[in-house]
Each structure stands twice: as structure tokens, then as C-alpha cells.
């Protein structure tokens, strides 16, 4: 670059120097001095004033310098003069040479025109010659071309005439591809001249082509051919303008038809999952339905693959078909599990379906079959879980209601026990089975299950929660405690046997104490893989809550049992006390019938209770327990009471009432209404207590004459012995029976009790009579 720039600069400088030397008066001096000299002493400047310069010079310099300067200037002027002369000379020289050159050019151009004319003439002659050659060859060339065209035409005609034969040959060698190519090649000609010159030829070739089409179609439909071949056939057919759509439709139809065959019909489903081992052993002879099904599905998927390759543009239909099959599978599955199905069977079917889906998915990955089936499987599985639970519930209630209590009751004493045991077993066995089943579900390794394992655990937990809740509700409905909404007044509460209520109560206790802990354990052991989602949505399995629910239910049911039992007695007593006119009662002759009925009811209660409830620890000493505390409270209220008595304005003599009060206080108040426990004794005692209390209340509502009172006295006296036998809390019974007597005496116009001997006699008579009655009954049953 530098090397380049330097000459450029040099050149430019030289040019500038040249120019300035040419035009400027003294360029070198100008450039060199301009900077040094000021405007005054710069000779080269345009504004140079000679006079000034002179003045300056004279003022500044001495003579010597002035002289020197003069000399110098004179020399410079001389130099400049010579330079100028040189320049003028040189320029003149150049002018002269230029004039010379122009003169020479003028002389040279002269005579060129003649040469040019000559050249033109020669070229003209060349052209005329070549035209001559061209015209002489033209005819021959045209002839050659014509010949060539004819030859081509002939060759085509030859081809068309050969076409049928060639096609036949192709058919023979099954080279349908070539045949179709030939035919399509000849097609335009045949179309134009087919009706005239090539009629025969055309017909023959069309026949051949028809054969080919037929062959191709058969090839297309034959399953034995390779897919490649079939696809080719389809392509060829398409090339032959054979309506492919109808073919497609036909093929699809065929596929659809085969769908029907592939259905797992609910009724056949169980056959499919029959023991796998048998199919392994005797495969050759008796093909197992599962095997057949698998083959069929494989065939189907192959067909689909073929179809897809043959008609790649119409996959949608295939997707639809495959989806339909999957959907159908799951629908059938739903139908199938509507019946009772074991988890193993369920899984078997599921596995088959899954295999099918996998097979189809391989062929049609775009159809998203696995997603579809995963969704469907979730739904189905959820249903299965729900159904399993509802089946269990059904089982339990079936077991409960299986026995017709009312009929067998008279004959067999153990019905309730049987029911209780059966239903306990049903609950226990049922939950165990459910766990087994669900564990199978969890252990299943089909791809779809692995994904859903968490979900399944959640469902199972939730299922148990719901199951127990609905079971409790059902218990209450069964017991008639709550009327279910679906059957309004379907069965009134009195139709429900009291024993059943008792069984339900005990069953609730059993569930609370045995079943729920077990279920909790099982869930913790096997199904703890709880998914957080399920917990967020709703409460999954909460054993504490369930225990509470069942505890409450058991108490409610037990209370309900006692209520229904006492209700019966209450009705009995109500009738007894409403009917006679107690003020005009006749002298007591015997113990009244209702006592028998009352005792009979109690006996029934005892029987039922004995079957169902456990025996309590014997607690005769309870009386002394409660005595201490009760006396204190009683005495406290006693003082209170007497305070009030004095405060009241009454100054009257102490009434009989007060005396009975005092008597009552001394007799030690007994707690009548204690909490019911799940023991035989407790239930019986509570029932008796409630009945006696009712008796007391009924008595209080009446007014008796002497005989009426005596009747009551007699009845109560008679009741005393058998009641004490059945009831653990003798003190309470004594107290209540006395209360009845007191109440009767208070409501009696003329209290004169029966003499003890008479009382005794009447009671003995009654006892003898009932014994006789029993004997008779026994005899009757024996004889019959």
C-alpha cells in the first residue's frame, strides 16, 4: 500500500509542480517563501507592494545586505527570464509536431474507399453460393423426415396390435405392473381410434385388462397375499381407474364385520378367562377361546395394517374403527362386571383387552388408542371397585334378611344367632375377599395398571369409607329407625322384627371393634400408596370417624331395640288400663292375663338377647355401689325439700304424701335409667325397668276402688318372682314394683290391701294353672 501510495503521491506532486510551474509565476518560491515571509516581504504574494517592500528593506538592512540582496535579486530575475524563454520554446516545438502529424493522417486516408468496395463484392458472392447449396438439398431432407415419422407411427400401430398378446403374456407371468403400464400407454390411441381401425385390438386388450382387474381385485382381497402385493394391486387398480372407493368401502365393511366376531360378549367372557393352564396343555385339540380371540384380534390388526398401507389416505376411518372396537370392549366389560365377577376374571378380561389394544396400537399409533383405553379403563376400574363394594353390601343385607325370622322363630331358638354369625362372617369374609381381589389388581403388571396404581389405592380407600358409611345407613334403614327415601312407607316399622334390630346392633359393634381395625391395617399394609389428589378431593379412609359412626349406630340400634320391645309392652299395658272401669272394679279372682303376656314378651327378649349378645360380668354388687352416692343426694334434697315445706304457708298436719316420701328416702333411691351396655343382662334389665316405669305411669293416671287396687297388688306380687329371676338389678326391680303399688295406693279411694294368705293362694293357683298350661303345650307339641 505504502509502495503504491508513494508513487501516487509522487505522481500527483509532479503533476501539481508541472501545472504550477506552467501557470504560477514562480511556484517553488511561492511555496517555499510564503510561510516564511510576511505579506510585506513576500514577493510571490499577490498583494505584494514593491514600494513598501523597498521601504522595509531600506529601513531594516544596511548597505551591504542591501547590495547582497540586489545581487541576489538580479540573479533570480535572470534565472526567471531564462526559464520563461525555455517554456515558450518548448510549447512551440509541440505545436509544430502536432501539425506534422495531422498532415500525415490526411495523406494516409486517401484510397481506402476503393478497398472497401472490393470487400463488399466478395461477400455478396459468398452468400449467393451458399443459397444455391441450400435449395438443392431441401427436398431430400424433407423426404427423410417424412419417412422417419411414418416409421414411428408404424411402430405404435405395431405396439397396439401386439397389446392383447403382450397383456396375455403379462397375465401369464403375473407382471400386472407392466401390463397396466402398456395398457395405459395405449389408452389414448385406443380411445381415439378404438371404434374404427383398432376395434378388435381394443376389445381383446380390454378383455385382457378386465382379467387383470379381476385378478388384481382377488389379489387385493385375498388375505394370503403379502401386504406389499396387495398394496401394489390397489395402486394398479387405482391407475386403471377402477372405482377404488367401493373397494375401500368393501374392505372396511369386511373389517367392521370382523369386529362383531371380536366382541367379548359378556356371556362368553367367563369362558375366555377359564383356566389358562388348560389351554397350554391341550392346545392342539381343543383350542381355547382366549387363544382364538387373540388370533382373531391379531388377524384384525393385520388387516388393519394392510388396509392402512393400501389406502394411506383414509386412516381416519380406521381410527374410528379401532376406537369403536376399544370402546366396545370396554362397554362389554361394563356389562360383564354388572354381574358379579371375581377380580381374577376381571383382570383376565382386562388383560385380553389390553393386549388387543396394544396390538392395534402398534398398527395405528396415531389413533391414540392407549390414551382412549386408559381413560375407559379408569372408568371401568372405578366402576368395578364401586360394584365390588355394592355387591358386598348386598351380600351382607342378603345374609341379614335371608332368614325368615318370624316363621322359624317358634320352631327354632337359634335363628338370631345363626343370622348374626352368618352376617359377621359375611362382613369379615367379604372384606377379606375384597382385599384379595384388590391386591390382585395392584399386583397386575399390565402397563395400564401401573399408571393407575395410585388412583386405585385412592379409590379403594374411598370405597371403603363410602361402603361403611352406606352400610351404616342401610343398617338404620333395615332397622326402621330411619325411613329410606326410596321406599316411602314401603314397610312400616312394626313389620321389622325386633330381633333383627338387635342383630344389627351387635353387628355394628362387631364392625366397630373387629372389622374396621382390620381394614385399617390392611389398607396401611397394602394400599397406603395414597395419592395426594384423592385426599384433596374428599376424605379417603378415616377409621376413627367410621368407628365413631358405628359406635353411635350400635348404641342407637340397641336403644331402638329396647324401644320397640318396650313399645309392645306399652301397648299391652295401655289396653289393660284403658279398658276396665277401675272405679267399679270387681274383686280380684286371679292374676290378670296381661301379666302372662308381659312375661312372655320378656321371655322373648331374653331369648333373643341370649342368642346375640355376650353375657356380662355378673354384677349383683352394683346395688351397694350405687347406694352410697344415692343416699347422699337424696338426703340433700330431703333437707332442701323440708326447707321449702316450712317456707310454704302450709301449717297443716303432715300428709300421707310426706310419709311416703320419707319412706321412699329411707328405701334408698335406685337409679332406674342407667346406660345400656352390650350385655344380655343389661338389655333385659333396661327393658324390664322401662316397662315397669310405664306400668307405674299408667297406674298414676287411673283412680281405683279397693278391688282395683287389690288386683294391681296381686298382679305385681305375681310379677315379683319371675322378674327377679331374669333381672340382675334386683333392687331396682323391687323399687319399681313398690313404686307401682305406692302409685296405686295413692290413686285408690279405699286402700285395703289383700291379706297375704289370699294373695298367696291366688298366686299359687295361677302358677299351677300356668304349669298345667305349659304341660299341655308340651304334650301338644310332642304329639304333633
Amino acid at each position, binding site marked *: 500500500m505504502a509502495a503504491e501510495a508513494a508513487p501516487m503521491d509522487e505522481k500527483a506532486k509532479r503533476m501539481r509542480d508541472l501545472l504550477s510551474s506552467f501557470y504560477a509565476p514562480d511556484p517553488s518560491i511561492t511555496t517555499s517563501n510564503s510561510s516564511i515571509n510576511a505579506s510585506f516581504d513576500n514577493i510571490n504574494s499577490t498583494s505584494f507592494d514593491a514600494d513598501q517592500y523597498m521601504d522595509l528593506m531600506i529601513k531594516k538592512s544596511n548597505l551591504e545586505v542591501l547590495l547582497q540582496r540586489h545581487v541576489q535579486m538580479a540573479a533570480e530575475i535572470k534565472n526567471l527570464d531564462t526559464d520563461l524563454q525555455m517554456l515558450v520554446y518548448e510549447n512551440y516545438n509541440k505545436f509544430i509536431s502536432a501539425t506534422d502529424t495531422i498532415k500525415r493522417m490526411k495523406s494516409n486516408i486517401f484510397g481506402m474507399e476503393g478497398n472497401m468496395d472490393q470487400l463488399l463484392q466478395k461477400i455478396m458472392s459468398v452468400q449467393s453460393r451458399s443459397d444455391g447449396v441450400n435449395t438443392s438439398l431441401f427436398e431430400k431432407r424433407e423426404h427423410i423426415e417424412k419417412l422417419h415419422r411414418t416409421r414411428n407411427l408404424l411402430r405404435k400401430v405395431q405396439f397396439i396390435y401386439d397389446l392383447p398378446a403382450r397383456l396375455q403374456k403379462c397375465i401369464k407371468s403375473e407382471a400386472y405392473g407392466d401390463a397396466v403400464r402398456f395398457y395405459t400407454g395405449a389408452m389414448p390411441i385406443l380411445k381415439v381410434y378404438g371404434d374404427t381401425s383398432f376395434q378388435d385390438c381394443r376389445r381383446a386388450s380390454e378383455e385382457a385388462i378386465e382379467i387383470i382387474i379381476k385378478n388384481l381385485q382377488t389379489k387385493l382381497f385375498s388375505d394370503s397375499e403379502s401386504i406389499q402385493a396387495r398394496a401394489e394391486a390397489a395402486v394398479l387398480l387405482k391407475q386403471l381407474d377402477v372405482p377404488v372407493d367401493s373397494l375401500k368401502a368393501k374392505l372396511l365393511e369386511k373389517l367392521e364385520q370382523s369386529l362383531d366376531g371380536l366382541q367379548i360378549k359378556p356371556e362368553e367372557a367367563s369362558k375366555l378367562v377359564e383356566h389358562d393352564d388348560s389351554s397350554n396343555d391341550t392346545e392342539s385339540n381343543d383350542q381355547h377361546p382366549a387363544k382364538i380371540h387373540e388370533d382373531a384380534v391379531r388377524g384384525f390388526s393385520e388387516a388393519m395394517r394392510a388396509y392402512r398401507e393400501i389406502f394411506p389416505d383414509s386412516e381416519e376411518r380406521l381410527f374410528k374403527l379401532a376406537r369403536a372396537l376399544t370402546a366396545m370392549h370396554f362397554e362389554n366389560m361394563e356389562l360383564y362386571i354388572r354381574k358379579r365377577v371375581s377380580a381374577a376374571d376381571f383382570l383376565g378380561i382386562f388383560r385380553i383387552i389390553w393386549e388387543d389394544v396394544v396390538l392395534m396400537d402398534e398398527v395405528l399409533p396415531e389413533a391414540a388408542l392407549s390414551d382412549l383405553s386408559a381413560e375407559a379403563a379408569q372408568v371401568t376400574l372405578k366402576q368395578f371397585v364401586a360394584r365390588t363394594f355394592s355387591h358386598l353390601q348386598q351380600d351382607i343385607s342378603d345374609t341379614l334378611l335371608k332368614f325368615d325370622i318370624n316363621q322359624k322363630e317358634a320352631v327354632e331358638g337359634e335363628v338370631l344367632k345363626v343370622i348374626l354369625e352368618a352376617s359377621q362372617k359375611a362382613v369379615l369374609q367379604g372384606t377379606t375377599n375384597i382385599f384379595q381381589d384388590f391386591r390382585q389388581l395392584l399386583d397386575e403388571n399390565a402397563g395400564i395398571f401401573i399408571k393407575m396404581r395410585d388412583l386405585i389405592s385412592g379409590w379403594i380407600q374411598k370405597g371403603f369409607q363410602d361402603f361403611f358409611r352406606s352400610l351404616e345407613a342401610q343398617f338404620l334403614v333395615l332397622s326402621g329407625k330411619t325411613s329410606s327415601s326410596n321406599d316411602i312407607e314401603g314397610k312400616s316399622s312394626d313389620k321389622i322384627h325386633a330381633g333383627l334390630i338387635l342383630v344389627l346392633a351387635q353387628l355394628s359393634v362387631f364392625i366397630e371393634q373387629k372389622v374396621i381395625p382390620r381394614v385399617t391395617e390392611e389398607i396401611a399394609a397394602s394400599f397406603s400408596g395414597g395419592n395426594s389428589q384423592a385426599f384433596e378431593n374428599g376424605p379417603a379412609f378415616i377409621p376413627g370417624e367410621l368407628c365413631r359412626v358405628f359406635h353411635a349406630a350400635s348404641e342407637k340400634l340397641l336403644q331402638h331395640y329396647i324401644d320397640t320391645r318396650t313399645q309392645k309392652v306399652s301397648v299391652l299395658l295401655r289396653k289393660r288400663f284403658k279398658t276396665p272401669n277401675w272405679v267399679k272394679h270387681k274383686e280380684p279372682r286371679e292374676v290378670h292375663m296381661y301379666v302372662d303376656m308381659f312375661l312372655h314378651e320378656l321371655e322373648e327378649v331374653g331369648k333373643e338377647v341370649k342368642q346375640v349378645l355376650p353375657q356380662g360380668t355378673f354384677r349383683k354388687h352394683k346395688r351397694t355401689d350405687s347406694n352410697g352416692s344415692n343416699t347422699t343426694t337424696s338426703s340433700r334434697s330431703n333437707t332442701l325439700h323440708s326447707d321449702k315445706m316450712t317456707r310454704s304457708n302450709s301449717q297443716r298436719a303432715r300428709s300421707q304424701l310426706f310419709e311416703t316420701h320419707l319412706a321412699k328416702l329411707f328405701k334408698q333411691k335406685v337409679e*332406674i335409667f342407667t346406660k345400656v351396655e352390650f350385655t344380655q343382662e343389661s338389655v333385659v334389665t333396661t327393658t324390664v325397668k322401662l316397662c315397669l316405669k310405664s306400668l307405674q305411669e299408667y297406674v298414676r293416671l287411673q283412680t281405683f276402688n279397693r278391688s282395683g287396687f287389690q288386683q294391681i297388688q296381686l298382679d305385681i306380687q305375681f310379677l315379683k318372682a319371675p322378674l327377679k329371676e331374669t333381672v340382675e338389678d334386683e333392687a331396682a326391680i323391687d323399687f319399681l314394683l313398690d313404686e307401682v303399688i305406692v302409685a296405686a295406693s295413692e290413686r285408690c279411694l279405699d286402700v285395703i290391701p289383700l291379706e297375704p294368705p289370699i294373695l298367696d293362694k291366688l298366686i299359687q293357683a295361677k302358677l299351677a294353672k300356668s304349669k298345667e298350661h305349659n304341660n299341655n303345650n308340651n304334650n301338644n307339641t310332642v304329639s304333633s
Partner: protein
Amino acid sequence: MQGGSSGIGYGLKYQARCISDVKADRDHTSFLTGTLSLKEENEVHLLRLSSGGSELLCEGLFSHPNEIWDLASSPFDQRIFSTVFSTGDSYGAAIWQIPEPYGQSNSSTLECVASLDAHVGKINCVLWCPSGNSDKLISMDEQNLVFWSLDSSKKNAEVLSKESAGMRHSLSGGAWNPHDVNSVAATSESSIQFWDLRTMKKNNSIERAHVRNVDYNLKREHILVSADDESGIHLWDLRKTKFPVQELPGHTHWTWAVRCNPEYEELILSVGTDSAVNLWFASASSEHKTSESPVEASRQRVNPLLNSYTDYEDSVYGLAWSSREPWIFASLSYDGRVVIESVKPFLPRR
């Protein structure tokens, strides 16, 4: 039980079943109660709560010729009340007036205003018209319903109409609808019957056996509370009589009587033969309770029993809210003990 300590007690000499709030006494909280003694001379006690509310004073003591099975104070005159009594083999009902000035002598005699002697069988109760100023009465025996007009100045009671409920339905008691003075509820063996007094016809009924006592909710129309022997207390909506609106467990033994609080619509008192008085909180607004999700319902199901007063020696039959101080109630047990309690600690926050 702690509940007993707060009560103010008063002892009658004899056994007793009935107590009534003296509604017409606007200056004092008073109650009337009568004894039930077959052989002794029976008494009617007029009790008044002292102004401090700490003492129950006897303002008057009047002898009554027969044992009293039912007693009701008239809503318009504090001196007038009705009784149903029994002589042992026959029943009677009468309107009485407390003599003036009362409370001077210990046992002044009552003035009989009118005798309601249109009955033959066992008389159950006398109901005063709840409107407070009309002199209409209803008396009920086991078969008949009698509608009376009372003229207290002329000492005369006139039968306006009488209707037989039929032999099969033995009536046991009733309540006069405070929202509709033409409607009376009567309890019978198998149902609660509703009578229209204009036509004296039965126009509705709730099929429910053995109902012992009913009471209308004073604050809320259409709500009726019933008590029966076995299955406790039920709240009914009179527009939907098929099923009860709400169920309360009632008492360990029979539930004898129920009373709705005159001021606080949710409060219900019940007395029972298990020697207890129970105070209930029954919202009864849960008409759409069924639509709630069961989980939510169970969470909301708080114990409706607010308190149980158990400091009684015998069955409790008498019960009355004070209409002047609606947080006060009087209860009467069979042994003749009146207990006044305040439910102030349990009042719903407003």
C-alpha cells in the same frame, strides 16, 4: 348434676300435675298450680317470683273441691282460670275467679264463675283462646270438643257448638293455634287432628300414634311440636304433614309435655317421666336439610340438647314458660315440687 342448684324451689303439700303461667299478670311473673290428691283437700297456689327473682312466694292459697287434672289461666284476666277436676269416678270442668283481695287468708274460697258441664266422659283439658281478649273457650273430653263463650260478669258460659270426634278417636289433649284462632289441634290415639272452629269439622291430621302433648310455636307459623311416649319429640310443618321436619330424642322414658318458648323460637322444653326437664335447641329451619350433603349434615348436627335439669325426685308433668320473662320456666314434678329455672345461660346469641 349441676343444673339443680340454680333452680328456685317451692313445695306443694300434695302431689300435683299441672302448672300454668298467669299470662294476664303484666306486673309480676306468676304461676298457678293445683294439687292432685284423691283424699285430701286440694289447693290452688298462686305463686309469684319476687322482684329480685331469687324467691318464689305464695301469693294466694285457695282450696279447690276436687283433685285438679288440668289448670289454665285466662289470658285476659289474671284472676280467672279454669280447672279440670275429678271426683274419683266423674269429671268436671269449671271457670274460677280468685276472690278480691286475695292472699289475706290462707285458704280463702274460690268463686266459681261458670261450670262447663256439657261433658259426660273423662275431660282432658280446657283451652283459652290465645288471642288474649276474647272470652272463648274450648273444653275437650275423650270424644267431644265443646266450644264455649264465657261471660264472666254474668257468670255464665254458653255452648257455642259441640262436635263429636267419634268413638274411635279418644282425644287426649290439644292446643289452640295462636296464629289462627279458628284452628285447634287435638291429640288422639292414632293421630293429631286439626279442627276448624267455624265449621267444627276436622280439616287435617297428622298420622302419629300415642301423641301425648302438642304445642304451637308462637313465633313461627306452621310449626307444631309434638311429644309421644316412645319416639320422643317431633317438629312438624303443618303444610307438610307426611314427615316431621325434625326429630329430637326426647326422654329416657315417656316425654310427657313440650312447650315452645314464647320469645325464642328455637328453644323447646320438654318434661318426662324420667324425672328430667330437657331444654332443646331446634332450629327447624332446616327444611331443606335433605338436600345437604350427608357429610356436611353430620358435621352440622350438633347436639340439640342444651341442658338437662335432673334434680327431680319424681316424674315431671307440669311445665310452663313465663310469658313475661321468657327465659324463665316453671316445672312441677309429681311429688308437688315447683322449680323455677332460668335458661339465660343457654339463650341464643342475637
